[in-house]
């Protein structure tokens, strides 16, 4: 029995359409006879037989498109008995009989890297730039790149390690990492205090509307989708920045540079001491659910020490929410090169006059530390008032 398969009729043909049979079961077939018409992407081509015999049976109907190599018909060679019935079993493998190909060996000859004999630190320009920004001392970093070259991830890990004390590190190592992180924070805070003429403002915000709206909102949500009130604070700050853009800026080379995008940095306390303030990117454009998702992710990664350098280095303003730790008001230092720091204290039930009536209300102190070089007190107070107003219409956040 000879198999008549869908032929390959061109250098890049993968499948063909059987247009018509020119021979039918029972017809005699001779070498060179046209047995079928097949349509390729070019046109219809007459397909010849390469054996002598009788067409036993066709397996594919005209109009069908099948991959090359598919059995189209069975030809009984001269002298062979007729087949009682078709051989059972799966249709022949669809593709053309793949001729065993030798494995392709990657042949890009490795480029021999010429490495400077003299010692000195080998570091990529990107990594050198990043180290400067994150205050990482490259001398202390071992490079994971070829030939020990220091790369971006080496700096990121060093920065994160500085920010996260190793959990179960052997005793003598903990103080070392702790000390390095303290040094980094110390350097930043010293620079902040030395260079930035701070002024501080605070206001008290009635949180009742925010909290009642949140409680009813969370009632309608499944457990996993519940929101924290901190998210509303973050969104309020982000939206307020739209109205007071001077605060969404950095101070570089003696002039304020307004930032087009709003990336609010959230101070995250790390267990066992230490603090990082990674950014929630495009905070103003995010939904509350988006912010909740991103904030949860940031907290997890901050604690695991795997924050990306961009998250660490590009917040345009920072929020510190020490209310959790029971503090009522925060008068903090700005993270350079930012020009503002927003602080939220804890929510306390207190007497509050509403339309002349004294009532008990959940009150929260919001503070603003700002760089007097970049803006004046008037704009700072407009900012805090805007936050207060936005929190009174939580449904619009």
């Amino acid at each position, binding site marked *: 029995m000879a198999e008549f398969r869908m032929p390959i009729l061109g250098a890049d043909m993968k499948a063909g359409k059987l247009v018509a049979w020119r021979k039918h079961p029972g017809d005699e077939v001779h070498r060179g006879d046209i047995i079928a018409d097949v349509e390729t992407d070019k046109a219809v081509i007459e397909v010849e037989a390469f054996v002598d015999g009788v067409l036993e049976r066709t397996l594919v109907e005209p109009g069908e498109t099948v991959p090359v190599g598919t059995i189209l018909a069975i030809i009984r060679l001269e002298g062979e008995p007729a087949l009682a019935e078709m051989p059972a079993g799966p249709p022949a493998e669809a593709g053309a009989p793949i001729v065993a190909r030798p494995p392709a060996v990657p042949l890009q000859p490795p480029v021999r890297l010429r490495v*400077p004999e003299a010692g000195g630190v080998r570091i990529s320009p990107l990594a050198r730039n990043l180290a400067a920004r994150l205050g990482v001392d490259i001398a202390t970093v071992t490079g994971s790149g070829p030939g020990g070259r220091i790369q971006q991830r080496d700096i990121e890990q060093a920065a994160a390690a500085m920010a996260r004390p190793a959990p179960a590190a052997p005793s003598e190592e903990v103080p070392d990492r702790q000390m390095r992180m303290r040094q980094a924070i110390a350097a930043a805070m010293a620079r902040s205090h030395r260079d930035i003429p701070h002024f501080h403002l605070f206001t008290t915000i009635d949180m009742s509307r925010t909290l009642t709206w949140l409680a009813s909102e969370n009632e309608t949500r499944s457990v996993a989708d519940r929101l924290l009130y901190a998210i509303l604070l973050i969104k309020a700050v982000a939206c307020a920045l739209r109205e007071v853009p001077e605060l969404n800026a950095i101070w570089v080379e003696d002039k304020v540079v307004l930032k087009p995008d709003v990336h609010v940095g959230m101070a995250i306390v790390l267990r066992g001491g230490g603090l990082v303030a990674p950014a929630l990117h495009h905070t103003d454009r995010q939904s509350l659910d988006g912010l909740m998702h991103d904030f949860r992710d940031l907290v997890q990664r901050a604690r695991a020490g795997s924050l990306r350098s961009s998250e660490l280095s590009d917040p345009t303003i920072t929020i510190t929410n020490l209310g959790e730790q029971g503090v009522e008001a925060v008068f903090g230092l700005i993270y350079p090169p930012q020009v503002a720091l927003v602080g939220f204290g804890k929510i306390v039930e207190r007497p509050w006059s509403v339309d002349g009536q004294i009532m008990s209300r959940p009150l929260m102190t919001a503070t603003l530390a700002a760089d007097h070089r970049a803006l004046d007190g008037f704009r700072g107070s407009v900012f805090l008032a805007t936050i207060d107003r936005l929190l009174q219409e939580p449904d619009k956040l």
Partner: protein
Amino acid sequence: MLKMTYREAVRSALREALRNDPRVFIMGEDVGRYGGYYAVTHGLLEEFGPERIRDTPLSEAAYVGAGIGAAVNGMRPIVEVTTINFSLLALDQILNSAATIRYMSGGQLNIPLVVRMATGAGRQLAAQHSHSLEGWYAHIPGISVLTPATVADARGLLLAALNEPDPVFIFEHATLYPLEGEVDEDTGPAKIGEATVRRAGDQVTLVTYGGSLGKTMEAAGQLADEGIEAEVIDLRSLRPLDMATILASVEKTHRAVVVDEAWRTGSFAGEVGAQIMEGGFDLLDWPVQRVCSAEVPMPYAKHLEEAALPQAGTIVQVVKEMFQ
């Protein structure tokens, strides 16, 4: 040592080859009776006769193809394609036959062929007669590409090419023919594939070849007056490319500028820059710079042509920016 011009140095190598090897013969437009488009083959017809100094019809594809066939069949032809601008008509023969037949035949055929052609701009010949396309040829595996910049190399590299079993293409910058220089007639063929440090320096590496060597040396002189010691490397061959010499220099200087008369985009300078980055990333204190021709069909007017071409002043300015 003998004082001679670049063209005389080429001629002396041709004459030596014709005398020593009966298989050698020269083919090209006006190489015989006219004495050569650049007078390189002047006098050879009288000495060696029309059989071996063959003027061809204006048929670049045919006489380059014929050179390939004759080389396969036991001869040692030296084909002069007048200028690189006319070689475009023979590109198929060069790429699909000369460079490919040895491989395609599974190593059975050798093509010991030398092809010489003038190249480059600087003589107000305008767009069609001023191309610098050696980089195209250097892209092709299967052939060698030589760019003699000095009188000594004009002779030494041609003699070396005649010892190669595979096709060699020699590009002689048109402005170099009248260049005066010293030649020691006893020194034999030069070494193919080795760059030469033409001027030592430890603050910046200037990589160049062929017609741009002069300007680059001039720039190095000006830089020295301003306290910057530049090392000048003459590639002498684009394929094979001597990266070892380049990287050894960059390790010392940490700064590299590649000077190449071709158009910047897709230039051979781009290839050298890429290989410096690949092989010497950690040596670099500054991104590799390139000084190439403006991306414009070569204008006729002198002041425009000079503005389009890389000049010593351009090189000096680019180097100084690397030292802000």
